[in-house]
């Protein structure tokens, strides 16, 4: 508990020193296309036969719509995250981290403004979500300690995966400056959220798991494994393929999901995303693999 309190205080100080203004500034009224907005190796079709059939302009156009898809995914994830954080600000047992939860909430709100501004200003749309996530998908009969654990575990898993994309694109000279800046700024704030999330998830697991019956632990592990799969599914968005002018977008999403190249891509990222859960004892290496 002392360690959690110390982490919460230290991260609160850092957040206070790195506050960012909510309105975006210095962004152009329009972004010129074709340009790269998503790093090629992170585009869902990268390395597949369809990717090979596209010329450079078509790939860059897809990179724009996949950026809109990635930011839309972040908007929906952060909206549910903010709702869940707000519900837990003063929850008994979480009071030691209450101060940092306020910073966390404020930073997520700022990020959503960046993402929504890009989507609306440059694409004229935010893609709708196809998932029910944080806060809304606990089992109705989950006790509060299980629901809280699953909420913070899902938040951590979501941010671990997003962070892997952010760090790559923050350092990619190919990208349009606006796309690079969004990823760089998001990465900087999320680094603190990850430190917090890893520590809190490990703390909550240690605190509760010994008292949970075997079927609750199986439920928690199954839920997190399914959540990861559901989250990855959102990265293959037929609406983005449709906007990029690709034919039969739903069949393409289905085929790409099962393509060995895409399966290998997910496997490369899934290991590091799940490592904090393995380290904390939430998942074992076999489950995580």
């Amino acid at each position, binding site marked *: 508990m002392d360690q959690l309190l110390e982490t919460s205080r230290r991260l609160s100080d850092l957040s206070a020193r790195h506050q960012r203004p909510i309105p975006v500034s210095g962004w152009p009224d329009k972004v010129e296309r074709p340009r790269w907005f998503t790093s090629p190796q992170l585009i869902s079709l990268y390395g597949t036969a369809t990717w090979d059939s596209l010329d450079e302009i078509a790939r860059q156009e897809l990179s724009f719509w996949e950026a809109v898809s990635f930011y839309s995914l972040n908007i929906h994830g952060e909206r549910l995250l903010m709702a869940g954080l707000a519900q837990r600000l003063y929850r008994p047992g979480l009071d030691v981290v209450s101060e940092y939860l306020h910073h966390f909430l404020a930073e997520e709100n700022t990020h959503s403004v960046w993402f929504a501004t890009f989507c609306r200003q440059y694409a004229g749309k935010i893609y*709708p*979500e*196809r*998932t*029910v996530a944080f806060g*809304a*998908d606990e089992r109705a009969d989950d006790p509060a300690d299980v629901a809280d654990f699953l909420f913070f575990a899902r938040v951590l898993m979501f941010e671990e995966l997003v962070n892997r994309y952010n760090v790559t694109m923050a350092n990619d000279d190919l990208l349009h400056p606006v796309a690079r800046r969004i990823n760089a700024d998001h990465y900087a704030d999320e680094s603190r959220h990850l430190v917090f999330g890893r520590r809190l998830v490990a703390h909550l697991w240690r605190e509760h798991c010994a008292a949970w019956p075997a079927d609750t632990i199986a439920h928690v592990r199954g*839920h997190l494994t*399914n*959540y990861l*799969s*559901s989250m990855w*599914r*959102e990265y293959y968005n*037929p*609406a983005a393929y*449709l906007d990029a002018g690709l034919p039969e977008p*739903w*069949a393409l*999403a*289905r085929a790409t999901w099962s393509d060995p190249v895409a399966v290998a891509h997910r496997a490369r990222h899934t290991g590091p995303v799940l490592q904090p859960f393995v380290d904390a004892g939430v998942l074992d290496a076999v489950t995580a693999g």
Partner: protein
Amino acid sequence: MTETDVRATLRDWVRRRAPSASVEIADDTPLISSRLITSLQVTDLLLLIEELRNAPIDPASLRPGAFHDIDAIYAAFFAGEA
């Protein structure tokens, strides 16, 4: 695709994800309350429905009960298209 084909495709999708192969899936079998499908599988199911309709769906427009059973799914997403 005919109504019969759509319903058969939906039943097959549910059957492949059922916790036990012996579970019988009829068009009026409750899917959510019996936990044959979970909210985390809705992404996958929506993608299948969109592909069958060849048109996107905005989940924000969905009415409660749209995934109650296959009859409800057909009524919510396909009935107006015949």
